[in-house]
């Protein structure tokens, strides 16, 4: 053994003493550190707000012309070019203002500390995998009410308010409880069954309007060695993109609203059971691409684009996301989900469309009106057209598709929206109760059912259990359809 401990003769410092004393020192220094380091929750002083500028026809939100404006964008499927173009317009309108623009995929990791510290940016696209929970942000009064923006004259026509230039449902989606509008969804997403018109034609089939027709198309496809369906097996919360509007079509929109409101026995409605059983039949008849439960969204979209499967439940971003694997002659199309038969409550065409890319202006932003002005610029017809032509998606601006060439998927989406007319549904589970919708219902129940590991009856029982649990859980905020 070593020799250091042998010399502990009373006058020197022995090893054991040394350890004891340094431990004591450590204990003493801990509380002292409290004075030196701030807590993780910050609680520092909020940043100073910029003074209001002069209100005028060109500056209806009274933006301070020389105040700095900071804009953080989610750098996802839509890229950042459309926002950069809009920033240039802001800089042109306020040449004295410094604009700090950044784009990131890590919204939460970059911005959560700043919300905590009371110095958030002025405009945020709170989107992507690292989206900050909107319910918590609203509940903790971290967001600014966007009503001034909605009531301001629109960029193109001073006689028209911004709110009157938006697509149906956009304003309602930004509300949580009561009148204030906390979120402005900039993109407009069409959900449904996506397929290749060319593949459907090659089967000598029409897009099915009833479930019997759907099964017939799948049988035809199977004969040609093509699966009827695939989906993002690892993220089964893509299935509701087609399933939820189908539930509304069969049982009426009240069923979806009851589900969103977490009403007791909402999932036990007969329409839910009918639709679940219809979907389960796809699995039982072998119409779902083999291996689907192990595929992620990209892998399933790639298999579908290769022609291994005919239909995929998805949103309009798929055209951009899978652009590299979709063949040029694919003739991408989207349609509303088929119903069961003529006894359905809503007509064929009932589909899910809603806002995407949620933009927020933090309550503690230094230059909140600057953030809103930037949004007002983005909601102009020219910016909206720029967005649509660059990223192949519709925007919240109602119109903005004339005079630009639309891609096949987008064109088909516009046609489907026209067919839907007023029968556009907007289920809110995925923005109100993220964990319930994605993890518990999606991965825990729908994914299990479509992999054949749970029957529809078991699935409904389990989902109802999760929904009841969420309704009782006091740690999450609850919402109701207005």
């Amino acid at each position, binding site marked *: 053994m070593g020799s250091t401990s042998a010399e502990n003769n009373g006058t020197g410092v022995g090893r054991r003493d040394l350890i004891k004393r340094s431990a004591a020192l450590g204990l003493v*220094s801990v509380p002292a550190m409290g004075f030196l380091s701030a807590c993780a*929750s910050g609680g520092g002083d909020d940043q100073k707000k910029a003074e209001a500028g002069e209100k005028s026809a060109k500056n209806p939100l009274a933006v301070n012309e020389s105040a700095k404006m900071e804009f953080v964008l989610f750098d996802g499927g839509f890229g950042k070019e459309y926002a950069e173009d809009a920033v240039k317009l802001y800089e042109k309108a306020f040449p004295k203002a410094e604009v700090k623009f950044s784009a990131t995929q890590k919204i939460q990791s970059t911005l959560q500390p700043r919300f*905590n510290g*009371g110095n958030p940016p002025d405009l945020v696209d709170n989107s992507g995998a690292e989206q900050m929970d909107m319910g918590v942000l609203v509940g903790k009064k971290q967001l600014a009410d966007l009503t001034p923006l909605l009531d301001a004259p629109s960029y193109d026509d001073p006689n028209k308010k911004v709110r009157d230039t938006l697509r149906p449902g956009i304003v309602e989606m930004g509300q949580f409880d009561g009148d204030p509008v906390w979120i402005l969804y900039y993109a407009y997403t069409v959900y449904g069954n996506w397929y290749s018109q060319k593949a459907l034609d090659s089967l000598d089939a029409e897009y099915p309007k009833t479930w019997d027709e759907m099964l017939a198309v799948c049988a035809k496809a199977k004969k040609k060695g093509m699966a009827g369906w695939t989906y993002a097996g690892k993220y089964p919360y893509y299935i509701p993109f087609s399933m939820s509007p189908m539930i509304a079509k069969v049982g009426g929109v009240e069923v979806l609203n009851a589900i969103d409101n977490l009403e007791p026995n909402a999932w036990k409605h007969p329409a839910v059971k009918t639709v679940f059983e219809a979907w389960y039949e796809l699995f039982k008849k072998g119409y779902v691409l*083999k291996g689907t439960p*192990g595929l992620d969204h990209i892998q399933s979209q790639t298999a579908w684009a290769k022609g291994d499967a005919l239909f995929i439940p998805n949103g309009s971003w798929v055209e951009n996301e899978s652009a590299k694997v979709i063949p040029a002659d694919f003739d991408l199309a989207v349609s509303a989900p088929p119903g069961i038969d003529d006894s359905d409550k809503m007509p064929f065409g009932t589909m899910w469309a809603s806002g995407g890319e949620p933009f927020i202006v933090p309550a503690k932003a230094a230059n909140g009106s600057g953030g809103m002005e930037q949004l007002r610029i983005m909601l102009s017809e020219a910016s909206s057209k720029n967005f649509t032509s660059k990223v192949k998606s519709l925007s919240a601006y109602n119109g903005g598709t004339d005079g630009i060439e639309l891609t096949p998927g987008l064109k088909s989406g516009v046609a489907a929206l026209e067919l839907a007319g007023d029968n556009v549904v907007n289920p809110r589970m995925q923005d109100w109760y993220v964990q319930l919708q994605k993890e518990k219902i999606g991965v825990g129940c729908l994914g299990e059912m479509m992999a054949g590991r749970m029957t529809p009856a078991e699935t409904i029982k389990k989902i109802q259990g999760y929904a009841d649990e969420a309704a009782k859980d006091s740690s999450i905020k609850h919402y109701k359809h207005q």
Partner: protein
Amino acid sequence: MQHGKYRFIVGFLAVPLGLYALFVIWPFIQSIYYSFTDWTGLSPEYKMVGFDNYSRMLDDDIFWKSLQHSVMFALLVPLVTLSLALFFAFMINVGGRRRRGGPAITGVRGSGFYKIVYFFPQVLSIAIVALLFQFAYNPDSGAINSLLRGIGLDSLQPLWLGDPNIALWCVMAVLVWSTVGFFVVLFSAGMASIPAELYEAALLDGADRATTFFKVTLPLLWDTVQSGWVYMGILALGAESFAVVQIMTTGPGGPDYSTTVMVLYVYQKAFRDGQAAYATTIGVALLLVTLAFAAVVMRLGRRERLEY
């Protein structure tokens, strides 16, 4: 000289201890403090709620599932990894047959090559490894199922990560694959310092390979194995298991919660659900599990140290 001694020692220790307290102990204390609040993580305001988070945690099925999986990770992954690493290291260094003109104690043929190959995965970051295996596990066009099809096993096409019965094993296998090389190298270094005479003596006494391993190599390597065990267990409870589960699995954490682990649950609660206080509560539970694991390994592994 005596009067300056304390000042001298304190001068050396103050800075590292201060840093340790600031960056290790203080965050721990903060976490424990926050576990008694209702802090969301998205706003600086919060209030004390007593033991609410703890009683909620005890009623939380997902928490218990994640605890169960984390404990499995901490027990099985080190066991399999270290056993494999010991076996490989033994074969590389000691397990060879005597060759004409060579030394009495040597590894199997080509051992130098194996040593490098085993270390390869260590060079890749765990995130890359997880991504690679995610492709390999793809049931439709992944390497494993393609291989199975290639050798005529068309009927055997498991869903791998999509099957709740095997998903957790798939994830554990990736962790073992990516860490075993490090321990092969560590144990090889340990074996190199065992004097050759001991092996020669064992050989003269007629010991076979298994006896040599259990009676000579393992006892002399025990300290290294033990610290490797703690290190591996902490990896399996913490960062590494988070990375593979987060990147590879359904959901992540699925299918149907079959792969969720405590670190993932902490992350999801803090950064997805805006419930930072509840996340720190689970973090405190994780701290206890980690401490208990280290204590158990240290106690079970206590043996008299051999000097050689």
